[in-house]
């Protein structure tokens, strides 16, 4: 019995054109539909400017759209909704000298689970992202990859327990979570995401690394020039032809020696 946790139906996002006189609206996302079940990981792939982050922001509730985005069992109240939906933005602007544990602790603001439990969750999330040794360091002194892992630990800590989320709805939205990470921590992160999915979290992430998407996601949504090119299982979406359409490169698709997932071999 699968529960369709996120349903995106014919979503379009327009912004007013930059020129003052032109009343033209530029379309960032054009009538895109897809869905994610609880326990599934969806990867959004596509070229720069295809509308991946814009779609993610719309799911997060940050920008206006037409069409419908339904999150099953989502709470009305903002504080309760924050226990269900966590968002990792592409870019973090934090430039105040919080300690790492304090940054992760901010994730517990919407919760009433008590100081002690919050501290435990913060420590567990730090351990999960392999940054417990940075716990008392200042965030502003960290490297880009370390900052990224702190922010990841923060969004994980926000939806850490199924019991905290009303109706058991948990949705994790990640915008390029692997961008600043080294190979080892990419694998660590993907393992953590799979673990969350195993516990019923629906994950939507924008990824540039097609092979990471192929290896760790259950489904993929390919966006080409604001429109949906393909949506479905990894095998359905990551094909030679689709990659050619998306990125205008010729690739060879091989099979992963252990996992049977497709592997894209570039030129």
């Amino acid at each position, binding site marked *: 019995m699968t529960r369709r946790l996120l349903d995106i139906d014919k979503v379009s996002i327009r912004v007013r054109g930059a020129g003052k006189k032109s009343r033209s609206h530029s379309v960032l996302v054009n009538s895109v539909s897809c869905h994610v079940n609880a326990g599934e990981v969806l990867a959004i792939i596509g070229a720069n400017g295809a509308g991946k982050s814009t779609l993610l922001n719309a799911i997060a509730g*940050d920008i206006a759209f037409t069409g419908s985005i339904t999150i099953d069992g989502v709470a009305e109240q903002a504080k309760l909704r924050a226990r269900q939906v966590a968002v990792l933005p592409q870019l973090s602007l934090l*430039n105040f000298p919080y300690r790492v544990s304090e940054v992760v602790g901010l994730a517990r603001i919407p919760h009433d689970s008590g100081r002690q439990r919050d501290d435990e969750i913060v420590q567990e999330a730090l351990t999960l992202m392999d940054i417990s040794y940075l716990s008392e360091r200042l965030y502003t002194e960290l490297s880009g990859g370390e900052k990224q892992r702190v922010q990841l630990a923060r969004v994980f800590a926000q939806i850490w327990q199924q019991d905290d989320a009303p109706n058991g709805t948990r949705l994790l939205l990640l915008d390029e979570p692997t961008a600043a990470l080294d190979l080892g921590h990419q694998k660590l992160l993907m393992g953590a995401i799979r673990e969350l999915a195993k516990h019923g979290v629906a994950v939507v992430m924008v990824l540039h690394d097609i092979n990471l998407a192929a290896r760790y996601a259950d489904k993929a949504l390919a966006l080409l020039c604001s429109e949906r090119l393909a949506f479905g299982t990894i095998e359905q979406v990551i094909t030679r032809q689709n990659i050619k359409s998306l990125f205008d490169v010729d690739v060879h698709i091989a099979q992963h020696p252990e996992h049977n997932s497709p592997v894209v071999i570039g030129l």
Partner: protein
Amino acid sequence: MHPLGQQQSFSNRTIVISCACALLPISFFLALAFGTVSISFSDTLWSLLHSVVGSESASGSSLGSGTDLASRLKLTSRTDLIVQQIRLPRALLAAIVGALLGICGATTQGLFRNPLADPSLIGVTAGASAGAALTIFFAGSLTSLSGLPGLGLVSIGAFIGGSIAVILVYSLATNTQGTSVATMLLAGIAITALAGSLTNILEFFGDEQILRRISLWRMGGLDGASYQRVAIAAVFGSIILVILPRFSTALNALLLGESEARHLGLSVQSIKIKLVLLVAAGVGISVALAGTIAFIGLIIPHMIRLLIGPDHRYLLPISALGGAILLLLSDTIARTIVSPIELPVGLVTAILGAPFFISLLRRRHEFGMR
């Protein structure tokens, strides 16, 4: 987890809190003891005790050694006058205004996500001044501005002026990407210039009496302290000092960014509006009652943040304490350094604050600013 680190930061915070709590009464006492007329510490203490229990001992004749007390009272009546009628209201006003400036500075910096955002640098103070001048200009004929209603009216004018300034600067400098430092400071210059010229125009067109009132008020400073001013400052100040710390968690989340704060379940827009209005009220009141005092809102939150970190649950109250201490000490210096001439206290805070600001600008990369 480094238990030692946790321990250390915890004790660091405790030390700073206890130091601030100890320094406040000390600086308050110094402000009472030092001045043009030197009064010994014991006499100051005696007079202060007097002012607290004075009414009781005067009315109650239960004290056995009545004549002894009476002679003592006579001897110290001049001291009493100086301490109770001149220095005490002034010290109280300095403490409240300093606390308001400190906490408003800390809030502004959190709201703008920028450690350089000080009410006096981003035009709020100038806006409040213009608002107060406008009130004096147009309402000066209606009420005598020395009484409680007059002061209240000027405070409201200052509040409205400050609100308009902070809203203008905020909307000019902030987009979804956050607040741009350069735009914020430039907008601050523009608003300050605009508000300054408005005040000058009013002075130019005002008749002699209004001109005198505006310029007297502009020079203002803490030397106009009276119990009336203290009463207004205490009422509005304590409201702001109580309400602002309730936004600590929201400010903590806002440092992450506005959309991040929204994703943590906060209604960012309404919180922003409330904070802007509270800051404008705090700065407006302090401008209306004590004139323009620069840099306290910059120096204090910054120093406290260096000591205990940016957690607003501690930063806001300790910034209030620190602001009170700094303004008390600055005012004591201003009154005594070239005694019997009094320097405006804004001059002292500016002399302390400007080099501090320059050193901050030189190290701005440490705050991730360009």
